[in-house]
């Protein structure tokens, strides 16, 4: 008998929603057969079976939320036919603790045994003061992944879990009747719910709104279209300016460390671009954007847009962003002149851009039509002050006014 437990498919995942089964109970499958489609954190993941055999149990229904480690599928069959199958997901070891210390340090051995014992007993290992903290924050230690030695749950783990979990005040339950349709909080919507809650609870979100003249961008784009670079649209050209502005204002290209609250400044610009997908707004990340020439950037943006529409983005595509760019320009019809975008944790800033509008501007004392775009820059005032924000805005405005191809 072989139990296929839900693996962590994307760096620290702990649950996924079953979208659909690709097999049936009783089917004979080979190692590698795709057995299910699951939604994890805004991406869909196909799960291949690590073993061959006859399916004896598929104990979930589409729509169910599974935790990593829970049994997804049970196979009957020759045990030897299961190849190097993943064992139960183990608690993460300290990445910088070399294995040789296991033999030499009896304390660590004891603690790893403790974590195994704890797992067997279903009880978590945490210091008394950490337990007290958990109780005070309303965090259930079961299911908290401990990042301490031997899987011990540390204060930071409790704080992180507290930030993620929602404890709404009890509200009056509306009676279920035909006038009320329940929309379960699943999949992408669930993720958005969590992220927005976390963001609004932790960041000191401050927004500055400004307008930029887009004539030069449009001229550049037109020139490039002539040169057969159709992929470089206004959005790509503007993104390029944002990337360069980030290299000039590195504190905007940063993420916060949840344990220490330190600011981590990134040398690479991993630009998250908000794009539409069938399941909602997603933010794939274009990695090392500062290294890309404008056409490359344009291609990258085009590609993620296509994949988002097709719902084929993978979990790694969504991770590691250092700044987020969001444009509702394509959807707008009204004259939306400002927004207050929420910051995409653990980043510290996000830029929203409107559509380009014809508006009256004053050039050299003369009123004439201009091509205007509204921008709203939200930044985390816990890290960034008004002067820095103004500097960034000034740089960005200048770059947009004089867009350069490629990077410096």
């Amino acid at each position, binding site marked *: 008998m072989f139990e296929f437990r839900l693996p962590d498919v994307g760096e620290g995942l702990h649950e996924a929603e079953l979208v659909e089964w690709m097999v049936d109970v009783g089917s004979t499958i080979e190692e590698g057969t795709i057995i299910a489609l699951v939604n994890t954190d805004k991406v869909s993941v196909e799960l291949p079976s690590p073993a061959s055999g006859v399916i004896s149990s598929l104990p979930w229904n589409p729509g169910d939320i599974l935790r990593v480690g829970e049994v997804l599928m049970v196979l009957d069959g020759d045990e030897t036919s299961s190849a190097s199958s993943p064992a139960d997901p183990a608690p993460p070891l300290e990445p910088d603790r070399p294995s040789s210390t296991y033999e030499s340090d009896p*304390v660590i051995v004891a603690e790893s045994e403790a974590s195994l014992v704890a797992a067997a007993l279903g009880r978590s290992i*945490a*210091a*008394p*003061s*950490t*337990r*007290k903290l958990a109780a005070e924050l309303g965090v259930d230690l079961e299911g908290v992944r401990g990042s*301490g*030695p031997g899987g*011990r749950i*540390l*204060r930071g783990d409790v704080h992180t879990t507290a930030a993620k979990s929602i404890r709404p005040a009890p509200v009056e339950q509306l009676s279920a009747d035909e006038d009320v349709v329940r929309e379960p909080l699943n999949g992408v919507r669930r993720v958005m719910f969590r992220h927005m809650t976390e963001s609004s609870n932790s960041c000191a979100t401050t927004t500055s709104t400004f307008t930029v003249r887009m004539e030069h961008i449009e001229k550049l784009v037109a020139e490039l279209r002539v040169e057969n670079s159709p992929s470089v649209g206004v959005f790509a050209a503007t993104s390029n300016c944002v990337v360069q502005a980030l290299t000039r204002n590195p504190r905007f290209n940063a993420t916060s460390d949840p344990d220490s609250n330190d600011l981590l400044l990134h040398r690479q610009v991993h630009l998250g671009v908000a794009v539409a997908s069938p399941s909602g707004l997603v933010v794939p990340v274009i990695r090392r954007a500062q290294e890309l020439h404008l056409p490359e950037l344009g291609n990258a943006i085009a590609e993620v847009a296509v994949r988002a529409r097709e719902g084929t983005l993978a979990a790694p595509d969504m991770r590691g962003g250092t700044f987020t760019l969001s444009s509702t320009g394509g959807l707008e019809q009204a004259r939306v002149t400002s927004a207050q975008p929420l910051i995409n944790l653990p980043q510290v800033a996000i830029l929203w851009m409107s559509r380009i509008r014809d508006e009256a501007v004053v050039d050299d004392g003369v009123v004439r039509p201009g091509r205007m775009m509204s921008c709203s820059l939200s930044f985390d005032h816990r890290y960034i002050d008004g002067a820095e924000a103004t500097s960034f805005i000034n740089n960005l405005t200048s770059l947009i006014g004089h867009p350069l191809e490629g990077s410096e």
Partner: protein
Amino acid sequence: MTVLQATTAAMTRAMLDDSAVVVMGEDVGVAGGIFRATQGLQQQFGEDRVIDTPLDEKGIAAHAIGMALYGLRPIAEIQFSGFIHDAFEQIMFCGTKYRWITGGQYTCPMVLRAPSFGGIKGGFWHSQSPETYYIHGGGMKVVCPATPDDAYRLLLAAIVDPDPVLVLEAVPLYRSLSGPVNDDGVPAEIGRAEVVRPGDDLTIVAYGPARHLALRAADEMSAREGYSIEVIDLRSLVPWDREAVSASVRRTGRLVVLHEGSQTLGFGSEIVAAIQEHDFGYLHGPIQRIAGHDMPYGFSIGDEYYRPSIERIRAAVRRAMDFEF
């Protein structure tokens, strides 16, 4: 004064203030005690009040009990705490029980002074930490002064206490430790600890000579490793100042308990049990114990590997500080 001089001064003061106070023991009169703690007392107060007894610890304790029943306040000196055990039944089943078994009618306000602890190359019989035997079962108060002022005031407190009190005197400190003592006859309060050194990261609780070692370790580690270590000298064991230890642990979250007496069922066990029960949610990690071992007090050439040492304290502090929570 040295610790020894403070001890003598306390007895002198008590004998002047109250004619019921008498001193008895082997070699305490003419010779002034083998440590000279009672030096001059017989000359000052006479043979009737400073009594050289036969070589019979059981007899010393038993007669002291009888005297106390009648209304005297005898101070019985046991030459070394290792010699006290012949009197164990008299002490723990007679002296400490008279009040209870007589329904409160007969009481036993006696003091037993017992030179204790190690660090003197005294071998098995002359280096002992017997406190646990004389705590278990109840009825005895126990004090363990580690400074001249404490030696003076805790002995005074023992003498005026209406119940039996065992004073564990620190032999290695008798002459080696000096300090200011105001001979004002004011007793200490039995049951109050002293926060010798304030700190925020970790609490060390000690008593007897170990207090000084704890202080040294705390100072060194604070300078070298930046730990802010609080040191508490319990000063008495029955009753002990749980409130002081608890208040400290609730701030620091880390506790190291330190004593010379052997580990199993040593007084540290009581502290650990009481603190984990009383302050569990404040603990960042396991409470550390550093104690003597379950055997006699070390080699004839020295007992450094028996008694808590600076290395063991450092290791325990590091264990406590390194424990992630």
